[in-house]
């Protein structure tokens, strides 16, 4: 059928179908995909990312902080929104802990490069999205206390990724332990050998070696 005006009538049929269809559509099914925001919260995908946060282990943020203030993320960050100052001990000697860790989320573009570059599994992407403030500057600079979030929170928002991270850390710990054990055994063996040598030479009583 191709009489003059038929295209317009076809188009009108499509919109009519949508008008009627949207009244009979289940919410979020085919047509009415709007989420009515303050009442309905979006169900975020696991991978969904917004801004970075710092993971800490255990219950105490200060004790459990994984970050060692190596400043790799600060260097790698493309818009340079991270600012880190190393902490010092009582003698003024730098220690492996950040004193200041700020992220300016008005600059951050959520690219996840800090996460990829962190060798200590310390910085991770959050999925918060309600971070507005009445000031353009101060409320949008997140400081260390705001950034520190527990490993449990991390498991809450991204179970798969967090489990993999934990497995990696556990593996690294086991490797380290095994290496330490091996090193200790080596030391012990060397000591024992030396002692045996000494004993053989002097034929004196030997001190028992203490395992670590």
């Amino acid at each position, binding site marked *: 059928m191709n009489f003059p005006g038929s295209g317009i009538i076809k*188009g009108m049929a499509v*919109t009519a179908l949508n008008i009627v269809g949207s009244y009979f559509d289940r919410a979020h099914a085919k047509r009415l995909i709007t989420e009515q925001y303050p009442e309905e919260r979006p169900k975020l*995908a696991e991978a969904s990312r917004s801004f970075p946060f710092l993971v800490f282990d255990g219950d105490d943020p200060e004790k459990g902080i994984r970050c060692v203030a190596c400043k790799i993320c600060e260097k790698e960050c493309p818009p340079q929104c991270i600012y880190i100052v190393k902490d010092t001990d009582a003698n003024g000697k730098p220690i492996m802990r950040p004193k200041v860790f700020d992220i300016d989320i008005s600059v951050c573009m959520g690219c996840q490069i800090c996460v990829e570059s962190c060798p200590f599994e310390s910085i991770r992407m959050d999925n918060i999205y309600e971070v507005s403030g009445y000031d353009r500057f101060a409320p949008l600079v997140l400081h260390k206390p705001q950034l520190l979030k527990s490993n449990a929170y991390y498991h809450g928002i991204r179970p798969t990724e967090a489990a993999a991270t934990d497995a990696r850390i556990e593996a690294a710990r086991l490797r380290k332990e095994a290496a330490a054990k091996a090193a200790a055994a080596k030391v012990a063996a060397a000591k024992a050998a030396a002692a045996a040598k000494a004993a053989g030479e002097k034929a004196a009583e030997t001190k028992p070696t203490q395992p670590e």
Partner: protein
Amino acid sequence: MSASSSNFFSGTADAGALEVSLGPHHPSTHGVFRMNVRMEGETVVKLQPVFGYLHRNHEKIAEKNSWLAAMPYTDRLDYICSGTNNWAYAVAVEKLAGIEVPERAEYLRVIVGEMTRLQNHTAFLGFILGDMGAWGSALMYAFREREKILDLFEELTGARMMLNYARFGGVRCDTPAGWLDKARAYLATYPAFLDEMEQFLTGNEILLSRLQGVGVLSAQRAINGGLSGPVLRASGVDYDIRKVDGYSIYPRLKFRVPRGEVGDCFDRFMLRLLEARESLKILQQALDQIPEGPVVNPAVKQRGFKPPAGEAYGRIEGPKGELGFHLVSNGTEKPYRYHVRPPSLINLTLLEEMCLGTKIADVMVILGSIDIVLGEVDR
């Protein structure tokens, strides 16, 4: 009334001429683009594009940052289709450093790239209807479907628009469990949507009279202007970098490249619809054939990446045309020179030629049919 005094162009205007600055704050210049237009009645006799309102120093920032740090910035070039921008940059770097890409990563790049093309062309249908003054229905239908593709992107990459997905020698992450099935199931519903759009739009007499014969561009002029992408193919030139270069896994996939005959706005409009259907075919094959394996070349060090000294030009067929990156390395961890060949900007160069002699309302439609994104034009 001082409407006829000459404001933008040198020399005095004719008594009947009206000069209007369309933009930078105008509802349908697709961003902060400005056109100084001289009209006689409603007929355009002179048009001067003014751009640079969205200049963000993209190239210089990339030269001051590490190689990897330019990757998230490429998302912001053409923010409608960031998936292909990442890919083009990765292709250029891989060419520069001679990096192999694993099989699965190539498939994932093609899947993300073609989905990007699909949603770009879908959104285009809505945008151009908006430029013609339709009251947003087509735009909302297009965005409804685009939303679902963006949901898939979010599940895969964590972001809806700024994917930041490609990496040197692969892609950033593998698909989450069940993602491929989800994508397959969703894309199976897509042809029905395209049919609905076609029924809604292509026969409409008003749309036909607004698009046909407007902004005609001959094949010769299109080639001379360096145009690429659907705008070039609408003028009847058979040139698609996916076929010409045969990069990635495209030679293995069966798809057709459509081209028009007249080169007017209607051909450009139809070409997007036809290309969307071809993209669906590519996606179907890629989703069926995707092998298991690593998604990134483990030999490549992303952080502190240092390609050997040299230069390379890598390009892909982006949704809007030939998207290329020209990179010069001096062996350090920052690019020595970083240049983008944005398809939107180069396609825009013939705007005045297409617009002269048309009505002021056509200028918007022609601009819309080129399908520009100002993030890419101004960089």
